[in-house]
């Protein structure tokens, strides 16, 4: 059965047709399809996270509100944070890594196509696992950074924390596998002539992101393993009564957590650095400075973790070190901001939707960055921490930053991905609703925070002055939601329309725009040879105008990796193991053993399957 299906597809591919149908998506190892899968899944999770946020906002709209019970509220903010970070922004970035990086570096696929499929399946299953907690009435409820010892068996009985811990563990596997893959891909799969310092800046920033993933995720893996042993096997790493230390969790978590925030923003930095030059019709200002500032940010990211822990009382020397290191990050980030300014300065700005989002990204991120610097000063942060001032800070960097950046990328690359131009008027409506809604929702949080509103409270009493602005925020959050409704409508509308996108609709500079939209399965009929940083601009300049539309080719003789379902089997095995772990008190070790067996079975078949 399966083999014949594979055979059919192979025959299909040989004849130059794209395989279609569900099975072809399940077995796909094509980086473009995997990118689309990542994007669609992550956007769905984003909407879920957004709906969770709207529920939070309704509850906070009025004082002493009883719309949500305290338990539900706590579950919702935990799942909102966890979903947005691990199931929305990271995989949305991964969608672009997948679709765009191989195209930008002139490759036919990633270094390990099946590993790539594996990453996606593990991500999907991890996300489903985490959200399955809702069905059991046991959604995680200890916050997205789940501080010990609140997460211990004693203070969090039930499955809530188990779902969170094992879900994150699963997602970590996906991220690590993908990071190894893309690290290798960027270094090894570049087309001839594409030196490192000729790589498109999006690829560069994504590459740095992979390094952060590789070095940050093992730490949270260990932190979660220790928690798992505490909860399942009776150790006491975080249990103070037995000599354990809850503070250890905070250290390990933030050693991961701070690099994580740059994992969330660097891809967006990359996207914006692609969009601004194209629509200003000017090359990126200070390319080398952009690259090195990215590297510097990543490096510093590992030395500032304890700025999340100023209130723990680490003593003056540690405070001083972490404070100064934190502030230092403003310098390379400032370099980026100024280079973006330099890029548009003196340009001939074409106001298309992606450009709107990219410019707003710069404007909004500055606000978030500046409040970050304010956090970096411990005596002041003692007042700011755990208030809505922090909530304002991180929504400005993650929504005003990452989401605006990703939206710019979505509008920019949409024609390449689907061969259809998104509607410009709807796009601009989306933009204005989002910009206004965003600022009205999150700017007042600065004021509330400094005036004493703590975060993670399911309600607040009357008389502390929080009523008006909270109501304003709640109303604005719906404006923000409306902006995404417009986006959805735009997608649906465009979907119904014809495939109308040319290969190079924006007069862009990089290799992905040299091939048809959407690209054919093998991307490049012939692997390009690169002579500079903006290969397409150079080609157009040489040609003396726009290039002719690239022809679709038959692809005969181009050898592509075979589809495979073993990555999925392996991912299922891994998820089964995680579920087995959770049920260890019911099934004994058997669940884990069964999962492990499936995993091994998958790995061996994968290893010995001809890759094609």
């Amino acid at each position, binding site marked *: 059965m399966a083999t014949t299906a594979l055979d059919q597809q192979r025959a299909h591919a040989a004849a130059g047709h794209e395989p279609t149908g569900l099975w072809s998506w399940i077995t796909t190892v094509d980086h473009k399809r995997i990118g689309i899968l990542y994007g669609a899944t992550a956007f769905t999770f984003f909407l879920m996270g957004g709906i969770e946020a709207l529920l939070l906002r309704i509850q906070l709209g009025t004082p002493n509100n009883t719309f949500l019970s305290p338990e539900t509220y706590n579950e919702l903010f935990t799942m909102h944070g966890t979903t947005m970070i691990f199931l929305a922004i990271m995989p949305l970035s991964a969608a672009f890594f997948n679709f765009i990086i191989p195209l930008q570096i002139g490759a036919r696929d990633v270094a390990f*196509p099946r590993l790539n499929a594996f990453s996606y399946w593990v991500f999907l299953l991890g996300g489903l696992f985490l959200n399955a907690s809702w069905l059991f009435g046991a959604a995680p409820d200890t916050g997205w950074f789940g501080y010990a010892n609140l997460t211990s068996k004693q203070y969090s009985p039930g499955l809530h924390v188990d779902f969170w811990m094992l879900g994150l563990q699963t997602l970590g596997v996906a991220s690590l596998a993908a*990071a*190894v893959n893309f690290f290798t891909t960027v270094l090894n799969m570049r087309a001839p002539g594409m030196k490192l310092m000729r790589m498109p800046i999006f690829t560069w920033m994504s590459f740095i992101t992979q390094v952060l993933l*590789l070095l940050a995720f093992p730490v949270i893996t260990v932190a979660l393993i220790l928690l798992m042993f505490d909860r399942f096997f009776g150790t006491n790493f975080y249990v103070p009564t037995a000599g354990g230390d809850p503070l250890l969790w905070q250290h*390990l978590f933030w050693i991961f957590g701070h690099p994580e925030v740059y994992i969330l923003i660097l891809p967006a930095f990359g996207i914006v650095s692609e969009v601004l030059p194209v629509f200003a019709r000017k090359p990126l200002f200070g390319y080398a400075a952009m690259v090195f500032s990215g590297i510097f940010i990543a490096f510093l990211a590992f030395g500032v973790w304890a700025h999340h822990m100023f209130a723990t009382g680490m003593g003056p020397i540690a405070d001083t070190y972490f404070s100064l290191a934190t502030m230092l990050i403003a310098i390379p980030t400032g370099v980026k901001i100024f280079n973006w300014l330099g890029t548009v300065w003196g340009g001939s700005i074409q106001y298309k939707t992606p450009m709107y989002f990219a410019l707003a990204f710069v404007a909004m991120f500055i606000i978030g960055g500046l409040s970050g610097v304010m956090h970096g000063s411990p005596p002041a942060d003692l007042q700011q921490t755990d208030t809505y001032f922090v909530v304002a800070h991180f929504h400005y960097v993650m929504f005003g930053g990452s989401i605006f950046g990703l939206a710019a990328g979505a509008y920019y690359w949409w024609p390449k991905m689907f061969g259809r131009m998104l509607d410009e008027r709807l796009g601009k409506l989306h933009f204005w609703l989002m910009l206004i809604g965003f600022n009205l929702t999150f700017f007042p949080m600065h004021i509330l925070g400094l005036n004493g509103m703590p975060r993670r409270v399911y309600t607040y009493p009357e008389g502390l002055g929080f009523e008006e602005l909270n109501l304003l925020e709640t109303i604005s959050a719906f404006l923000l939601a409306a902006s995404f409704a417009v986006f959805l409508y735009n997608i649906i509308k465009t979907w119904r329309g014809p495939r109308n996108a040319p290969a190079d609709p924006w007069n862009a500079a990089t290799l992905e725009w040299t091939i048809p939209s959407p690209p054919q399965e093998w991307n490049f009929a012939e692997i390009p040879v690169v002579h500079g940083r903006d290969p397409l601009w150079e080609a157009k300049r040489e040609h003396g105008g726009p290039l002719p539309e690239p022809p679709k080719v038959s692809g005969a003789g181009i050898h592509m990796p075979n589809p495979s379902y073993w990555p999925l089997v392996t991912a299922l095995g891994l998820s089964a193991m995680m579920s087995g772990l959770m049920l260890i008190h019911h099934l004994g070790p058997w669940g884990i053993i069964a999962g492990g067996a499936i995993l091994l079975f998958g790995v061996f078949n994968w*290893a010995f399957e001809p890759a094609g």
Partner: protein
Amino acid sequence: MTDTAHAGHLETATGLDNRKLAIWTFIGSECLFFASLISNYLVHKETWLTGPGPFPHEAWTSPAGKVFEPIIEIPLVTLGTALLLFSSLFVVLALANAQRGNRKGLLLWLGLTLLCGVFFVGMQVYEFTHFVHKGLTLKTNLFGGSFFVLTGFHGTHVTIGVIWLFTLWIEAFRGKIPPAKSLNLEIAALYWHFVDVVWVVIFPVVYLIK
């Protein structure tokens, strides 16, 4: 395990093999994994005397008057350490033979590597059961917890390495590792060496330093 999309375009941009670069990347990542585990162990050194014994280097008398001897047995572990180091030597010799196309040599040295690996795992299993008999489990105290988790995860890595090398041994036996494919072994060997150097750190930190 040839999982690369290098159809019709064999060289990579760096000239390095994808899989070899990937395994090094993975090893780099694993450094942080073990660093975190080791940190966990060291951090708890301050407080692991809470709770009942036994303890690594200290004798301990329970409230009921029972005396626990220090639990760590250095000679046994020294043997295991030596075995692991020698296995590292053997696996490079196996690789050298594979690259030269000497199947017999490859089978011999790889076999010896495997034996060392199996003995090391056996040593750990013995040590663990022995500790449990002496009253030290994961739950006993923080020494028990951090010791078992650190050495246990290392042991898991060794076990995976043994399975991996065993698969390769069978492949070699069936003549499927000609010199052109010696990279398959080289990659496994890199992993194996890494697991070895992790032990090079764990051995003094856990067993020798009080």
